[in-house]
């Protein structure tokens, strides 16, 4: 590998930190309840705050949603590379700097690069959500081979610990937050999982 700085070093600041939500799966959930929960989950997954950085095989994050007007690739020819953190080209953290964990008002300025208390990065290739249908995203999220080998509990814990995901609900800078709340989204994951991860047929 020609890159001098190892990804392990660059990703050192991505260790999970906070725990903000309660993870209490329901005792039972019907398929109908699971599908209703999935419908809400899809609203979140397909929202620009989430989907813009879930671009699949493309290493170009997107700019879309009410804050951007026209849908387009991230300005400045940004490419996250195979590393997904821009190590081959321009590190995401060059502009999306890492903030202190306790500073809640770090993203107040419109049009500035959002910052969280971990290294900014693109989602894994397998988590291909931008422009994808409800069925496509549903099947990816319930497939351990494509969701990081996560079961229901692990999906919920991932949402609890990954601070970039938390940013989606408090993006600042005039950006539209993802729908519902982090806790409601985790609750829906737990309902969907308890119901057996049902996916819509059409």
């Amino acid at each position, binding site marked *: 590998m*020609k890159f*001098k700085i190892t990804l392990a070093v660059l990703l050192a600041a991505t260790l999970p930190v906070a725990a903000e939500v309660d993870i209490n799966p329901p005792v039972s959930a019907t398929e109908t309840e699971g599908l209703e929960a999935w419908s809400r989950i899809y609203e979140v997954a397909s929202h620009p705050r989430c989907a813009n950085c879930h671009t699949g095989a493309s290493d170009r994050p997107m700019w879309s949603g009410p804050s951007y007007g026209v849908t387009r690739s991230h300005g*400045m020819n940004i*490419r996250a590379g195979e590393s997904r953190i821009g190590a081959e080209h*321009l590190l995401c*953290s*060059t*502009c999306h700097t890492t903030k202190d964990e306790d*500073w809640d008002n770090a993203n107040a300025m419109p*049009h500035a690069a959002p910052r969280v208390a971990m290294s900014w990065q693109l989602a894994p290739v397998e988590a291909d959500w931008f422009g994808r249908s409800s069925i496509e995203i549903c099947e990816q999220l319930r497939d351990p081979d494509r969701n990081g080998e996560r079961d229901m509990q692990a999906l919920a814990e991932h949402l609890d610990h990954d601070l970039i995901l938390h940013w989606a609900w408090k993006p600042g800078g005039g950006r539209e937050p993802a729908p519902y709340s982090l806790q409601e989204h985790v609750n829906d994951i737990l309902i969907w999982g308890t119901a057996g991860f049902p996916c819509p047929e059409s």
Partner: protein
Amino acid sequence: MQLTVNGNEHEVDVTPDMPLLWVLRDELNITGPKYGCGIAQCGACTVHVDGVAVRSCQLAIGDLAGGEVTTIEGLAEPDSLHAVQEAWIEHQVAQCGYCQSGQIMQAASFLDLNPEPTDEDIDAAMSANLCRCGTYPRIRAAIHAAAKKLQEA
């Protein structure tokens, strides 16, 4: 609040949310890093923190977390310029020069990560550093030249 810039320790009396660029320019009178946009859109304020390029307008001093800051003033060795600076002079890259300290700091950090860049790599790394004079072809040539110098060093 303490910080180390170009190997020198400084004590500043500022609020933790003050951007590093403000601290450098207004508190320490280190004016190589330039103010261009204040929102990470232009790259004129680029410095290194622990050797990695960062837009200093986007890093609050309270988030520096002990990182050592290097500005264009501290990039060269005491008795020789950095290879990127040498290449910049040889290729006469600068026109008005306002963006050039940011360009050089970004290029130096980029070559640390990618010592043998292609044209495409350079374009992907440097497109977030804007130059209103349009010196991009010379920037690209100088980066190739600097890469060669660093390989031969």
